[in-house]
């Protein structure tokens, strides 16, 4: 049985994200200190966007496909940086200003791969994960729309890799 504090390696939650729990999960099964580096990305909700004062964000996800997407992305990272282990936790529902909407931890034997893999994962999440944010701002609200999700688009995958490695 998993300890009470354990979370899945790839997960979606309506609750505040415990950053340390995500880090621990990435380090799980590392075995005898195999992971010398863990890089963490925390995406926080900003209080300002496009010149408007943001009150909160409301996230929604197609959860089973989003979990599949995280799995695809973690597998891509594993192919690119062998030995890297990825943990992802994404919020849904209302997320207040300053709270984390996503936490990614990339554990690796060495720091270069950990940093690169962590950056790659957030770029790919933004490209393909079926998650949407609705911005509630001073004076209105609006769905934010970014990339057309296409996991088969190799140019997008290459662009994410290049951002991760520059």
């Amino acid at each position: 049985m998993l300890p009470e504090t354990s979370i899945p390696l790839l997960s979606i939650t309506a609750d505040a994200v415990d950053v340390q729990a995500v880090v621990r999960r990435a380090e799980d099964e590392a075995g005898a200190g195999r992971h010398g580096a863990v890089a963490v990305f925390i995406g926080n909700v900003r209080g300002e966007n496009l010149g408007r004062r943001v009150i909160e964000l409301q996230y929604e996800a197609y959860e089973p496909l989003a979990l599949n997407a995280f799995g695809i992305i973690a597998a891509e990272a594993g192919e690119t940086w062998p030995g890297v282990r990825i943990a992802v936790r994404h919020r849904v529902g209302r997320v207040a200003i300053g709270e984390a909407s996503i936490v990614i931890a990339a554990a690796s034997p060495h720091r270069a791969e950990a940093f690169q893999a962590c950056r790659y994962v957030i770029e790919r999440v933004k490209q393909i994960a079926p998650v949407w944010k609705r911005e509630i701002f001073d004076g209105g609200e609006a769905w934010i729309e970014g990339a057309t999700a296409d996991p088969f688009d190799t140019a997008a995958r290459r662009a994410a890799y290049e951002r991760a490695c520059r």
Partner: protein
Amino acid sequence: MPITILVFAKLRDLVGSPQLVREVVAGSTVEDVWQALASEFPAAAPYRTALSAAVNAGYAKFSTPVAEGDEVAFLPPVSGG
């Protein structure tokens, strides 16, 4: 044959419901399902060029055939992270 259609975010707002059950003819593809939906909800039609699709919670192409009872999801441009 009946299938379930899921729509999200702004697309759900345009359709007015997160989930619909519709009849499609055997041999239909994801594209056929979309075209029927866009006919029923013309305000959603312009989304086609920016849309992605999934069948039974796996990414799918618009040429993917659908089977009875499938869950076909249409995804507007994403904004996670």
